[in-house]
């Protein structure tokens, strides 16, 4: 064997490893979904009890006149002792009619609704919340603090389902299930609804089992007073992921964070690619910052917290590094195609059969967790990775069905040149789908964008769009791009 053959063998092994990285995120996801049924027995319900602490609700608000009244009125209808609930709206120097509306609501509900105003606003949600926390924690009344958003509607039993876990002093904070709650849904809100089922009802149950939560939902996080005081009585500022940093800091101080799947709150979500891109870019950039800040925590199982768990770290980085995995996978496949096309085919099939089985299992578990969302959004569930990838999955599961049997019905047969072109296309598609998502965002602003953007998104997939946003976040962080707070516009579409 000469030196070139040795080098080629080494290169082939490296390329196979590249392709295998593409399977890591899906296998990790499937592993997490396998832990969901464990939540049936490994949960916190036995330690929970009926518990009604005095709760101060903090609602940061900037120009929220359209939504704030409905939010407060629904909050006052909660099945929770009225004398143990106070609502504080922290008006971040609104320029609309929010101050007048709040003045009216405080008069209508004396001792229950309070309006706090910052004259100098615009520093972001964490600063606004800290203004409220300083006042709320300044006296002894509040035993727990619920942090929420101005557009989030709490279902009647949701708060008491959260407070019951605080009966156990080991629990520092509890998060609820934020469901997409728009009255008039479109393709984007249906995709988001499915994403929330997977990322909350499934993934956060798995995180309950693992004993570590990645992030408490910013729209519904209930902290015990002791937990907030332990992290300094304020929400950490300086990153774009204040919710995640607060969640990590609390866990590092030895308190457990919990997700309560039966506490349901409804929120209004973005309806366009551009709107979700801006929102998720903020979250993704926050995650880049968190990955760096807690670099000494990952993969180091420690005492007192579970953030260093191997499984938890794999879960975090399989999402954070998913775009890298997709690009490496494509590079590996194209390289193998040039060197050993038969091996490329075998590895490709193994990758996609693994991906298809993992995806199918994850979706089938997810759809049953919230049957109402499942019934409304099952198409978006199966087209989550995109129509093209869905067809590739069918081809991987049932070899010959798409590329031979279907054309043969029409008397057609794939020519060698067509076969090569198609092979290169599907090998590259894993990463090219992200570019497709970028394209969908670009066409959305054009005259044909109204129908072309959704069509493109169904083709390339919602999942690849999230990966494209993650890539954008790497670029923006690398360039130290402007990180000023951009508020997601809310117009009061949540079911009343």
């Amino acid at each position: 064997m000469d030196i070139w053959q040795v080098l080629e063998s080494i290169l082939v092994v490296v390329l196979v490893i590249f392709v295998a990285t593409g399977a890591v995120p899906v296998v990790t996801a499937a592993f997490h979904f396998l832990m969901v049924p464990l939540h049936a027995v490994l949960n916190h319900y036995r330690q929970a009890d009926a518990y009604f602490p005095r709760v101060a609700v903090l609602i940061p608000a900037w120009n929220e006149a359209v939504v704030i009244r409905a939010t407060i009125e629904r909050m006052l209808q909660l099945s929770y002792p009225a004398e143990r609930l106070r609502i504080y709206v922290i008006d971040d120097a609104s320029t609309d009619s929010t101050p007048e509306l709040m003045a009216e609501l405080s008069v209508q509900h004396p001792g229950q609704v309070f309006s706090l105003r910052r004259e100098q606003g615009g520093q972001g949600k964490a600063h606004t919340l800290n203004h409220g926390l300083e006042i709320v924690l300044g006296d002894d009344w509040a035993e727990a603090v619920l942090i929420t958003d101005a557009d989030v509607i709490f279902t009647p039993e949701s708060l008491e389902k959260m407070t019951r876990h605080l009966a156990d002093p080991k629990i520092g904070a509890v998060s609820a299930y934020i469901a997409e709650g728009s009255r008039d849904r479109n393709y984007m809100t249906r995709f988001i609804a499915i994403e929330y089922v997977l990322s909350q009802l499934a993934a956060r149950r798995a995180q309950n089992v693992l004993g570590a939560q990645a992030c408490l939902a910013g729209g519904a996080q209930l902290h015990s007073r002791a937990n907030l005081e332990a992290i300094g009585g304020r929400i950490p500022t300086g990153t774009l992921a204040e919710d995640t940093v607060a969640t990590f800091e609390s866990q590092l101080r030895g308190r457990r964070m919990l997700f309560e799947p039966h506490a349901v709150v409804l929120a209004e979500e973005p309806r366009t690619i551009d709107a979700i891109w801006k929102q998720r870019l903020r979250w993704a950039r926050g995650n880049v910052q968190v990955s760096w800040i807690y670099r000494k925590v990952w993969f180091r199982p420690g005492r007192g917290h579970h953030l260093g768990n191997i499984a938890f770290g794999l879960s975090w980085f399989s999402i954070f590094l998913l775009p890298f995995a997709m690009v490496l996978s494509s590079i590996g496949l194209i390289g193998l195609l040039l060197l050993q096309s038969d091996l490329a085919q075998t590895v490709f099939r193994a990758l996609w059969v693994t991906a298809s089985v993992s995806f199918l299992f994850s979706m089938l578990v997810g759809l049953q967790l919230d049957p109402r969302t499942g019934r409304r959004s099952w198409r978006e569930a199966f087209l989550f990775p995109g129509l093209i990838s869905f067809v590739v999955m069918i081809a991987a599961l049932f070899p010959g069905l798409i590329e031979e049997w279907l054309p043969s019905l029409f008397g057609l047969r794939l020519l060698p040149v067509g076969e090569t072109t198609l092979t290169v296309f599907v090998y590259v598609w894993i990463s090219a789908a992200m570019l497709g998502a970028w394209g969908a965002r670009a066409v959305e602003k054009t005259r044909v964008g109204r129908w072309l953007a959704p069509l493109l998104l169904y083709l390339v997939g919602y999942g690849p769009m999230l990966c494209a946003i993650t890539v954008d976040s790497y670029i923006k962080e690398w360039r130290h791009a402007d990180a000023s707070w951009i508020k997601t516009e809310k117009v009061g579409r949540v079911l009343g």
Partner: protein
Amino acid sequence: MSELTRVQTERARHVLRRDARRELWLIPQALVAVIIVVAIVWVRQAFFV
């Protein structure tokens, strides 16, 4: 404990027990998912490979 608080506590405990029981459904739901995936893999092995 006042009468109102007692009633609320009883109701909250009832809701807690109900939610704990609901979590048990996760096991058959996962089994359904496994059965469907296994069936699809079986069809693949039996008719396509």
